[in-house]
């Protein structure tokens, strides 16, 4: 293998690679953050909502989770322009991943909330908390501990799913890599490089998750 040629090519294409990585990072971050917020709302609706709230939320989770992400990405891109929303490929892709992420987070949160004992809600009621307070101080902090490992997995899935945005022309890391390879034909080297970058992003997410996990497991005050 000609390492010098490869390194020269990396240096020559560094701006494109950095840009591609930044796009992948940005679109994943948007999807994870916005998807988590939306997913929490959906998870609450499906677990504690009355019928008019619970059914749409349930339907949302089942339909979106049951749809291949690629279909979701293509549908968002083409349907949005057909109905008059002129989203850029980046916007459409971020939206599709957000919707996908929300369905997973909703289902993860539902599972975690349902594993909590009913006595927790009753104890919160008994001291005079309204549902908002019970959720914020009692249910959510506990559900977070259960849900965190699965949530990290879902976040990593979002980074991987972001590669599908290459089909609608978002110049994220995979599409950028393919474009570079079409010029220099260094297939193996550049796909490996992309793989390493994806690994580093996912590794970083897992480290953040571990950090949050450790923070959550600490007692509110030190045991004496």
């Amino acid at each position, binding site marked *: 293998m000609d390492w010098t040629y490869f390194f020269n090519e990396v240096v020559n294409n560094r701006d494109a690679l950095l840009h591609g990585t930044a796009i992948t990072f940005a679109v994943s971050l948007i999807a994870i953050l916005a998807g988590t917020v939306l997913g929490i709302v959906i998870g609450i609706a499906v677990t504690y909502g009355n019928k008019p709230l619970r059914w749409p939320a349930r339907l949302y989770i089942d339909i979106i989770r049951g749809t291949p992400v690629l279909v979701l990405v293509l549908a968002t891109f083409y349907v949005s322009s057909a109905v008059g929303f002129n989203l850029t490929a980046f916007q459409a892709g971020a939206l599709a991943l957000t919707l996908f992420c929300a369905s997973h987070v909703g289902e993860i949160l539902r599972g975690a909330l349902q594993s909590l*004992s009913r006595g927790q809600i*009753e*104890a919160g*009621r*008994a*001291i*005079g908390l309204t549902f908002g307070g019970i959720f914020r101080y*009692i249910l959510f902090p*506990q559900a977070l501990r259960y849900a965190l490992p699965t949530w990290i997995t879902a976040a990593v899935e979002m980074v991987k799913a972001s590669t599908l945005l290459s089909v609608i022309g978002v110049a994220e890391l995979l599409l950028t890599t393919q474009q570079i390879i079409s010029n220099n034909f260094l297939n193996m080297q550049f796909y490996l490089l992309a793989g390493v970058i994806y690994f580093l992003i996912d590794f970083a997410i897992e480290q953040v998750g571990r950090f949050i996990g450790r923070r959550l497991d600490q007692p509110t005050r030190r045991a004496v």
Partner: protein
Amino acid sequence: MTPIVEVRDLHKRFGELEVLKGIDFTVAEGEVVSIIGASGSGKTTLLRCLNLLEEFHRGDVLIGGEAIGYHLRRGQRVRIGEREVARQRAMTGMVFQAFNLFPHMSALDNVTLGLTKVRGMPRPQAIELADHWLDRVGMLERRDHRPSQLSGGQQQRVAIARAIAMSPKVMLFDEATSALDPERVGEVLETIRSLAQEGMTMVLVTHEMRFARDVSDKVVFMEDGRIAEQGPPQRLFLNPESPRLQAFLKTSSF
């Protein structure tokens, strides 16, 4: 004087099944009332109606003279809003069979949560009050422990502190010792007894007949959704009038 708890013609259904079939009883200030009866007689449901953990279908529950849970709008019973329900619930303190401490919080924070978030008390003041009650139930030394680091009896004593720190008008105990190991029952009963002696108004659902006899001012015997007999413990335990109560006391050990 207005009774602390007044229950008038209380009815409660679970679907087709009527579990409370017209309950009337009162609890005066400083009074300790024990509710006894076989499983399924409706005693826990009655207790849960007193702090609106269960809805009821007919009749009234008054806490400190205030009708809870419902108000009348054009002659119709309407359930009151969530905020009002929450405020009314805080008039009573509930101790559960399964303790139901918040497992992600220290013993101290279990007690301060309601004080800061419901009563709006500043944290230093809430900690001071929580420490006072944790000390009172003998748990001050373990205030920084999580529930999982405490025995059942210790957890239940923290749960008592959590409820009583909110200064409720009446404390409700739902089989507070039923989930405990036999050797842990005594410490919790002792805590309840000492609170009773200080004049705390209490309603206890219990299977501890000896305790009910020794601590209560009044005993209520329930049978099939109704109060079959009520009165001072001496009379009920020594001279039960109804054959049902006679039979029940024969099968309960104490």
